[in-house]
């Protein structure tokens, strides 16, 4: 009763759960234009996930699985699927796991074609895998963003304030699946602490968790953006791709149910008042007051629904450095970053570019 009343009071005054404030980007997250200064490796529309193995990288771009050598040669599409690839992982022995938006999971070897055998991750509902990673023991771990929507409908899951995501362990040899955690608000990235304990990015709750069957620990919370894929960094720590930043207006819309419902019903998803991998390219996109082009200039600090942000976390999941592409930048929607052979390869899905961050720029 008291809870309901105080909830009502918060709703009326905009406090508590109805507060729309967003943590500032400060300290290690201080904005810069570092992503925009990086060299483009390849323009690749819809480039999404990256995996590295030996002397080559694997990328997913839409339904295509693309391969390229670390010396940038030999770019070729090695497989094409009928559904967009939503996650990708390679095991040390060259086993590649590919997750598709339709919910299927398929395996192949790096050097040879797949056997066409597709498995469905049971009891994942209508959802699909958002992130994959192999642990040191060789088991595959998978994040399922939502039980209600496929990974491609992430925006709808956010706008419905979804919290039906889960994390699974899959024994590759017999495809035995175990649910490690559930009721997560869109887990969208996974990496391992010491190679064994999974660390998961929970996007809609803006935090990083250590997940095990016995429970979850919060490692870092109140991120100013929506955390996406995680990958291990050399020398300990992680690379965190933040695929969109939080903003007051979106936080406000998330607390306005009637508006959200009508928006989802009446407006095309691309033009919602919601975070996006890329916004401001269409005249139908919502524009915020501070983003008006004044005297020919689009301000870098203008409010925008899309943003580019890559964060280097230390072994305790505390941010120690960050690379940004601000409102006026053209490297928005960072979905993956993988460190391999003295460089970090970064996928900016929003603008469809693949960037390279050389070692000298991230090692101090």
């Amino acid at each position, binding site marked *: 009763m008291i809870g309901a009343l105080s909830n009502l009071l918060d709703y009326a005054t*905009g406090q508590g759960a109805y507060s*729309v404030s967003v943590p500032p980007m400060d300290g290690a997250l201080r904005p810069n234009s570092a992503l925009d200064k990086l060299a483009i490796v390849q323009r690749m529309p819809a480039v999404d996930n990256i995996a590295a193995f030996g002397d080559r990288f694997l990328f997913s771009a839409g339904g295509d699985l693309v391969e390229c050598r670390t010396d940038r040669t030999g770019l070729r599409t090695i497989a094409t699927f009928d559904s967009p690839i939503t996650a990708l992982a390679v095991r040390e022995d060259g086993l590649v796991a590919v997750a598709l938006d339709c919910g299927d999971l398929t395996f192949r070897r790096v050097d040879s074609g797949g056997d066409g055998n597709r498995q469905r991750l049971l009891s994942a509902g209508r959802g699909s895998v958002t992130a994959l990673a192999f642990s040191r023991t060789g088991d595959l771990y998978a994040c399922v963003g939502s039980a209600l929507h496929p990974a491609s409908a992430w925006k709808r899951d956010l706008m419905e304030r979804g919290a039906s995501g889960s994390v699974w362990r899959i024994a590759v040899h017999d495809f035995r699946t175990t649910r490690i955690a559930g009721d997560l608000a869109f887990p969208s990235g996974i990496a391992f602490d010491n190679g064994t304990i999974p660390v998961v990015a929970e996007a809609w709750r803006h935090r990083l968790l250590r997940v095990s069957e016995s429970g979850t620990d919060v490692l870092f919370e109140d991120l100013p953006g929506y955390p996406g894929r995680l990958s291990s960094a050399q020398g300990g720590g992680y690379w965190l791709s933040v695929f969109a930043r939080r*903003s*007051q*207006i979106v936080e*406000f819309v998330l607390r*306005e149910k*009637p*508006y959200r419902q*009508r*928006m989802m019903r*009446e*407006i*095309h998803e691309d*033009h*919602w*008042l919601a975070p996006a991998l890329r916004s*401001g390219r*269409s*005249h*139908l*996109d*919502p*524009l*915020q*007051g*501070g*983003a*008006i*082009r*004044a*005297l*020919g200039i*689009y301000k870098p600090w203008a*409010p925008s629904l899309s943003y580019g942000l890559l964060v280097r976390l230390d072994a305790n999941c505390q941010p120690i450095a960050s690379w940004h592409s601000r409102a006026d930048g053209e490297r928005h929607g960072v979905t993956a970053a993988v460190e391999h052979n003295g460089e970090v390869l970064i996928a900016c899905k929003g603008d469809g570019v693949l960037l390279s961050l050389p070692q000298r720029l991230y090692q101090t």
Partner: protein
Amino acid sequence: MSLDVYHRLRSRWVPDRAFGELMSKSWIDTAIPVLILVLAVGLCAGLVDGFVSTSSFSSMARLAGELALPAFGMALVMIAGGVDLSIGSVFALANFAVLFLLNVAKWPVAIAIPTVLLLTAACGAVNGLLIGYLKLRAFLTTLATLIILRAALDILAFYWGTEVVAGLPESRLWDLLADGSVASIPFNLVVALLLGLGLHILLTRMRLGWRISAVGGSRRSAYNAGINVRKTVFLTYFISGLLAGCGGILYAARLNSAGSATGVGLEITVLTAVVLGGTTLGGGRGSISKALLGTLIVVILTSALLRLELPSGFNSVLLGAALLFAVGLDVRWLKNKGKILSSVYVSPGYLALPGSPQIHAGSGTAYEMNDRLAAAEPVALGQLDGAEDLVFDLQDNLYTSDRHGNILRFAAPDYSVREVYAHIGGHPLGVHIAADGCLYTCVSGMGLYKVTPERDVVRLSDQTNRSLLSIIDDSRMRFADDMDFGPDGNVYFTEATIRYDVTDWATDCIEGRGNGRLLCYDPKSGATRTILRNRMFPNGVCMTNDGESLIYAETWACRISRFWFRGPTAGQIEVVIPDLPGYPDNIRRSSDGNFWVALLGVRSPALDLAMQMPDFRKRMTRRVAFEEWVYPNLNTGGIVKFSLQGTVLETLWDITGEHHPSVTSMREHKGYLWVGGIFNNRIGRLKLHGADPTYIDQLGRAGAAP
């Protein structure tokens, strides 16, 4: 959908706009004491038997008259930033002195009263000298004079205490003061009201009053502004002493008593009354009417207690509590008034726009996106800031404005040198040149102005007729936007909104109500009148060629309408284009007899939906920083050519928005289309193929032959 109906009806019929406008009035401070007064009367009428009776009201009125005078004095002192505690003793001194002069010295009343007033004014002057000139602290100084005068009075009472009350003076004036009435209002209240009126005029309409408020508001600023602060402070204490004396004389006439308790605690009663009325302790804010209201409240409460026959201690308890309450209220009100105002002033309405036509490239509509505007050659690049409109004279020189209040001129033929043609102030928006070479401009924040060829700035109009039921003063012009010359010699111009200034244009968009109007200036009489009200941000206006009608653009309604201002169908409105894909700004003639309209921005589905949800927008304005609000998409703008029948003939866009993101104006001149944007740093010049290369806009105007 039922929610939709609710929003529509609510935004139409619930006057929350009026509440916000009331809150923005400076006299709203007085509403609180009025409310307390009504509550006090209601409470006392309910609790106290016989409270509502002629005799009770009459005795209260007599008391109020006596108390009001020192309260006025206290209010003046407090408005100037001080406090006068000595009034209790001054009051008692006046009481004693007048009785002494009348009963012991047997002076005539007409001489005794001025003498006593001189005496009390002298007491006030001592306070004034000490505080105003010698800069002593008001509180301690007046406390000391309170004690000294009280002690002196006690000594006097020791010698003459009985003589002074022996006998009554034979005087009609004295009797009138004692218990006379004018039209059944006690005479002393009449005196207080008359003096109050005089003081109100002094305070609000005269130099001294403004100085008193200025000194109280900010002593240092008042000093810097050249006000004699010391003298002003001195005068407030002087007047306070005089008024306390008046009160004492009225008291003497009524009671003919010189008891030692006379005037004891009066300073607290008066202080309570003044603060309850809403005069701020820190100075600078307050009024005579507030002091009067406070006095009435205090008199009603104390009389009610008296009638309840409670022990006398209760009176002090009540006064103390009321004082605490008033001080607390004063502090909270001052702190939160601005906050309340800013959160209630914006009152979003329900606005369901008709479906937007498709404009994306490949849509095949008349509005289909193209890159024609991007090809415009830049003019005056980097030399502009706020060039909403542009115009040419007959020598092809270009005139525009900036947001610093200047009219700028770029001389033909290369338009590279920027010259400040005239400085007006405000932010000039629409600029037009009349047949006589005068440049007319609508200046937001100021009104309708013209600049003669000799560069003299002439104000044509800055006010229109005040509407009867408008709470905010809609006679002043807040946001004059664009104009055109009528065939009858009048100037027809728009005022985009009467509720916001030019910097808050977006708030008017979020409000989405018809806050604007169409005005007509008659140069023969010099008068301006409102001819159309409640338009949705009326922006561009342009005469048609029939001499009877004009077309105007309503920006937030994405609509262009035609209005007949004279002729057989005068007063009629017809919608020309009901569903533009963007927000229309200025309208200008084209050489082929059609019209150009600038699109400030395009519609986005997210905002269109929000416009149907007033509560959503209201909460947005309260909770979200305004830089983060959803705006019309002003980073994509264009120009549409249309016929008077509403047919869209062609469209010019800048798809990327790099050069002309938002277009507020354009003018066709000698085969070129010139494009301006209020947020842009350039003007664009675009060759029009097939356009009349001799066309000059102001010569094409109906009834304005050179």
